[in-house]
């Protein structure tokens, strides 16, 4: 049969963000494929070298659009590590609440994204309604819906507003009661079972070869490889939660882990609301003029567990008022570029969109 070239994205309901998968197909089967990134390249790493440490806070959330808070956290952790700065106890707990709410919202978006490629749009609408409720909570806390700029160097920008604990509790109770509905609509839905069971396999050798982290890794290796457990940051060592795992990684297993992680995030948020102490939420990061403070020389890599895997900032300071080098390690780098080139061939055309969805590929962080 004649080989034909097809594109998935950048304009496609199954594609997340502005990247495109180029596929050479014979009939239904993909023979060769690669990802074409670069449509969202904004030169962030260069821009960050030219801005003050504190000014970068406005830039970093834009590195990953659906999940901005992990950028703020990784950047703040890296800078605090270089500064040897101790932040107030309450700020750690507020950060964890924000990060877990962000994790729920991204998981909902990705789980709802299953609706695009499988034609199950009801699921997508349900998930987006719930994500919208989280954005409402974010708006009350930070004043912004998507780019919060709330986790800053030295703590969080301001304390939680009055009565927000009640709002968060009501929301997570409501969501928890409806998680079984999400299962029925998505992974247990008879109309899409054939699309997600035993498709898009990710064997353990491939995980180690590519360097896939996050849900892909945990679903294939059957081990709780989660940075919140392995190298705990903030106060993740003081809360109790489980890391969902599985020993067979197909699309269904990874989506199942997403739902289980939403459940665990809800448990973490409950504990945070109970254990959170009163007190200050922000300390001044440096001496000198209000914004032109300097950071001591050093190299640091600060990784955190995002909803898609290990996400980190590599930062170098030469003692100046601006960073010398900022490098972003996107969680979707291995599976998005090398994974699509090497392991997408052999699957069917309609699986490409599911690969992009269930592997958690975020094109803005590949491009930066």
């Amino acid at each position, binding site marked *: 049969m004649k080989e034909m070239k097809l594109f998935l994205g950048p304009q496609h309901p199954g594609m997340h963000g502005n990247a495109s998968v180029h596929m050479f197909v014979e009939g239904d089967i993909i023979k060769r494929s690669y990802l074409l*990134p*670069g449509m969202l*390249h904004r*030169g962030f*790493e*260069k*821009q960050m070298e*030219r801005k003050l440490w504190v000014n970068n806070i406005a830039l970093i959330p834009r590195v990953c659009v659906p999940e901005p808070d992990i950028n703020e956290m990784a950047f703040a952790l890296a800078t605090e*590590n270089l500064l040897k700065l101790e932040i107030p106890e309450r700020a750690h707990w507020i950060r964890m609440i924000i990060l877990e709410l962000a994790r729920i919202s991204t998981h909902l978006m990705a789980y709802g994204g299953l609706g695009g490629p499988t034609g199950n749009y009801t699921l997508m609408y349900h998930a987006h309604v719930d994500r919208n409720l989280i954005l409402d909570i974010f708006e009350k806390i930070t004043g912004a819906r998507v780019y919060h700029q709330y986790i800053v160097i030295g703590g969080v920008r301001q304390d939680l507003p009055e009565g927000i604990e009640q709002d968060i509790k009501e929301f997570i109770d409501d969501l928890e009661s409806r998680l079984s509905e999400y299962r029925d609509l998505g992974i247990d839905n008879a109309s899409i079972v054939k699309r997600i069971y035993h498709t898009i396999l990710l064997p353990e050798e491939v995980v*180690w*070869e*590519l*360097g896939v*982290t996050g849900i892909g890794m945990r679903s294939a290796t059957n*081990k709780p*490889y989660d940075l919140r457990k*392995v*190298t705990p940051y903030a106060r993740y060592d003081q809360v109790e939660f489980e890391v969902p795992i599985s020993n067979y990684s197909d699309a269904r297993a990874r989506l199942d882990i997403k739902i289980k992680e939403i459940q665990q995030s809800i448990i973490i948020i409950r504990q945070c609301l109970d254990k959170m102490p009163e007190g200050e939420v922000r300390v001044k990061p440096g001496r000198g003029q209000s914004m032109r403070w300097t950071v001591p020389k*050093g*190299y*640091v*890599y600060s*990784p955190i567990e995002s909803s898609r895997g*290990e996400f*980190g900032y*590599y930062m*170098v300071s030469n003692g100046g008022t601006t960073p*010398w*080098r900022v*490098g972003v*390690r996107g969680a979707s*780098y*291995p599976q998005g*570029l*090398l994974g699509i080139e090497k392991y997408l061939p052999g699957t069917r055309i309609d699986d490409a969109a599911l690969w992009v969805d269930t592997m958690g590929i975020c094109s803005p962080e590949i*491009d930066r």
Partner: protein
Amino acid sequence: MNSISNLEYVDKIILSITKDIKKESIGEYQVGYEVNQADVHQLLSSLKLEGWKQLSYLSAIDWPEENKFEVVYVLFNWDKPIYVQIRAKINRDNPSMNSIISIFPGAKYYERETHEFFGIAFPGNPEYKKQLILEQWDDIPPLRKDFDPSAYSAKKFPSREYPDDFSVKDKDNQVLEKNAKRKKRVKKLRTGGKK
């Protein structure tokens, strides 16, 4: 899960290969080593054998005063949780660093990106010269310190000069004058003609 003994374990592996290192400890779960360019591949492969199976990050840093590039490799071991940074300085003129894709196949795209943004050659990686993110780039690699983005954009996208003033679309339109007159009249009425 005793991280201090893990740090000693890393030390032992590194020192068994080379003594010519500069070590710095960065936090509880992280350690950095500055090594010679020639030792990098041996260090990476022995660390991989000992369980540092994941390449987390690969990139470079530009140090124009020393006329050097610094190539960075960050490895991670999930069972003995220590991030190991291996850094090696290479020459800034005709920079070249042998590829590590035979040790970590996942480095393929990181090396392509580093070549694109710093101009470092990675012999051994068959595709390192292919363009990845920057389309039809025609200047020096952009993450080098001597690349000035504002000068590039002024050169690439020169500001236009307009022969006519298009800010007022219709020359017969007297709205601005009318408004000024009206304001004057309103002021006059309000003050009753007094100054």
